[in-house]
């Protein structure tokens, strides 16, 4: 385990033992199983890991997730183990929400800010045990997390490379895990955590995900990664299990209305241009900001923002036509430019062109009629359309099975 002592941040690491010394990038512990399934032979990057864009066809993978279940490799996600007497007050100072509301054995969504109240990243806090937590996020944050330890009796360990993780998402995910022998899995409620004995190791399961569907995330030591993959595909064979890449995940998470770092906001510490960051309020996450806490990073700035008003609204757009409004400007009906689309896709489930967009206040009222400027190309010829768009409040895809306990077998 790579433990970092806050007082001595730089520790010599024997690079010769690391795979990336030879490959310049880590292969996931699931690589031997991903590689044969990756018919496209295309790999993207997630931080220092290889991560497939798609294995065969992203649309097929999307449909597999909405109608059966898919496996997405979560290993590259940043995972930080936070433990010690002050773990709770430490986390409460770090993130904007009240962490004590995340009970033991539960997961909570959170966002954290720099002193200026601008978002650094969003993520999930896993309350593993007494004074024992895991924080997961897309970006790497070890330096910031160690900076935050001053004055707290807390140990922060980067366990990104020590925990292999898979997301199993879709309507048949529960039955697949049942088939795999996880007894009582159907009783887990949304955001529950449970541990299972698995092949002589401990498998942690959380009912969480990034698809807006019924789904679970599975956490295990890298030595048991391959056997987990194999057992999962065996158990899900008759339930349509498929491997899924990042392109399909993008369609799924936009349908679910989930924001993502580098799309809806830039991490504050990696943003150099003034005004290019976003506050939780500007990301629609005001409900995660708890001013009853006497101190947390960004509190003072956010109080001021609450008083004086914020600059942007993050909204969901329902757009006419079938062309994804990627990177589009957003205009009022009078052609005044008021914002940009941050994420867009054709939603096969909603049968609509949908998007997340950042609009300058006061725009973004539910029902507001807007225009988005879409450029598209047909055989090298570019065209432009000003498509009508409406601000909507409901997420585009929100099946009841996401919350139902026990879930049906489908």
């Amino acid at each position, binding site marked *: 385990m790579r433990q970092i002592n806050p007082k001595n941040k730089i520790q010599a690491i024997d690079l010769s033992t690391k795979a990336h010394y030879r490959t310049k990038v880590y292969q996931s512990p699931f690589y031997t199983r991903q590689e044969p399934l990756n018919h496209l032979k295309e790999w993207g990057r997630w931080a220092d890991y290889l991560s497939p864009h798609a294995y065969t066809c992203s649309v097929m993978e999307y449909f597999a997730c909405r109608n059966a279940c898919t496996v997405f490799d979560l290993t590259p996600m940043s995972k930080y183990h936070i433990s010690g007497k*002050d773990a709770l*007050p430490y986390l409460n*100072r*770090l993130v904007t929400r009240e962490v004590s509301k995340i009970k033991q054995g539960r997961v909570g969504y959170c966002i954290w800010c*720099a*002193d*200026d109240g601008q978002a650094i990243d969003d993520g999930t806090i896993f309350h593993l045990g007494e004074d024992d937590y895991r924080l997961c996020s897309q970006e790497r944050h070890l330096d*910031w997390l160690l*900076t*935050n330890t*001053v*004055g*707290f009796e807390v140990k922060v360990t980067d366990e990104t490379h020590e925990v292999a993780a898979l997301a199993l998402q879709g309507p048949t995910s529960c039955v697949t895990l049942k088939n795999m022998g996880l007894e009582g899995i159907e009783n887990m409620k949304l955001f529950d955590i449970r541990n299972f004995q698995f092949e002589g190791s401990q498998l942690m399961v959380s009912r969480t995900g990034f698809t807006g569907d019924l789904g679970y995330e599975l956490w295990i030591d890298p030595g048991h990664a391959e056997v987990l993959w194999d057992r999962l595909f065996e158990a899900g064979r008759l339930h349509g299990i498929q491997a899924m890449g990042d392109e399909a995940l993008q369609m799924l998470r936009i349908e679910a209305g989930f924001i993502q770092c580098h799309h809806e906001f830039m991490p504050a510490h990696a943003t150099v241009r003034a005004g290019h960051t976003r506050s939780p309020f500007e990301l629609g996450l005001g409900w995660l900001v708890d001013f009853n806490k*006497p*101190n*947390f*990073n*960004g*509190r*003072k700035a956010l109080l001021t923002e609450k008083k004086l008003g914020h600059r942007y609204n993050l909204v969901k757009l329902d757009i006419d036509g079938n062309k994804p409004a990627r990177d589009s400007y957003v205009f009022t009906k009078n052609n005044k430019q008021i914002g940009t689309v941050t994420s867009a896709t054709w939603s096969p489930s909603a049968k609509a062109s949908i998007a997340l967009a950042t609009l300058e206040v006061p725009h973004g009222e539910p029902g507001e009629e807007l225009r988005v400027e879409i450029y598209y190309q047909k055989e090298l010829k570019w065209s432009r359309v000003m498509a009508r768009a409406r601000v909507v409040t409901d997420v585009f895809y929100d099946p009841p099975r996401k919350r139902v306990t026990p879930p049906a077998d489908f």
Partner: protein
Amino acid sequence: MTNSNNHIVIVGAGHNGLVCAAYLAGAGKKVTVLEAAAQVGGAAITREFAPGFNVSAGAHLLFMLDKKVRKELSLETADLSFSQQNMKTTALAEDGNHLLISGDALQGANISDNDRLAMKEYWRFMNRFAGVINRLNNRIPPRIATRNRSDWISLAKTALNIRLMGKDDMREFLRIAGINIYDVLQENFDNPLLKGALSMDGVLGTNLGPRSNNSVFCALYRLSSLQGMAMPKGGMGAVSNALANVAGKLGAVIRTSATVSRILMDGDHVAGVELQDGEQIATDTVISSADPKTTFLGLLGARNLEAGFVRKVQNIRMRGNVAKLHLALDGTPEFKGLHQDQLGDRLLIAPDMDYVERAFNHSKYGEYSIKPVVEITLPSLHDDSLAPPGKHVLSAVVQYAPYQLKAGWPEKKADFINQVIDLVEGYAPGLRSKILHEELLTPVDIESEFRITGGHWHHGELALDQFLMLRPVPHSAQYASPVNGLFLCGAGSHPGGGVMGSAGRNAANAVLAIEKSGGQHP
């Protein structure tokens, strides 16, 4: 807890805490000053170090006391008098051919006419440039990147002050303000002894060598109160006592041996302080004259602050590199070639700039100087209250002595004292035989006696990146802190160290201005 109505608690009765208390009491506030030590003054005290021998244990020369503080608090009428004023400097030469420096006049050391002329010009422009800093000292630093009108006016005034120097002086000021004093002295002078002595002005009390940038700035800062060097009658403690008397007469309550152990919070607001014995004093306003690291990380605690701010506070450079030597002498010391009249001057051992730089080199690697630079005074020559009849006190600033000594101070302190005495003995043969008692305060001792993190006299290195709106760190550079109700008034705040009082005065003004505007920054 008691009622906190309109009650202000000041942590620390150093000179800045006392000045702040006096101004606030004068403005009708109910003020309590809590001092951990048994006497007021912080590092501006006179105390006995051997039976019958008293010394200014911290600062031993007074040359920066804010003229506004002096006048507005009528210090001269409050029993503050001087045993010496406009003191001269003698740069000691090992062969006894010393150099006497009195303002811009030079005498001895075979000084050339060129150097004499150059000194007139150097003295002129250094004092002129110091005047720019002088006008910044007793002002609340402006914030940058705000839309606040008073901030912009303050910035514009500073720019105007620089512009009004005229083209040539402005250009020279901007050229040298950020560079090192070695280069500037090299450009102007030939005489090594002169350059050595003047380079001391750029490095005294700091963690700099003559070739470090910011050493010109430090020299300007030392001149910025535009007054000569003086010794208060009764030692530096007399300044603090006078301030305490004034504050007391204005109604401030000063409690000694009352050690604040922490600042109490209620939600996001200061609620009071807790003393070491457990006593709690309720207040909604705490003004700390302790250094910023002690205040924020020690008394308040990092968990009551935002993490980015904590990182900035941790990164404040405040590692002491200066020791203080006190000798009780049986009789008057004799220095080779030094006339009896000059014995009462400020005596420097800094024979040339390379000597000073070499002395500094050791400290960079956690070692003390083999041949340190020394600023010697013999206060009892002017003030017989400090030593028994016929006996004398020698007080010396000794550089460099790093806070973090690799070999450890407990192991090496005795060696260092011997080495320093040997060095001075070289200039003053027979000194050792006259020593009745000796005391050396390393930065570690200074840290524990005066409760200054790192034992740095100035509560933070004096440097352009830790000056004005950057002192101690942004978001607490206007004396208010990120925590509601907590203010700073010590040397860690603008303008900085030296027995000056400007920080205390500015802080009092900031507190009053914020109160007047209903709790907001004006």
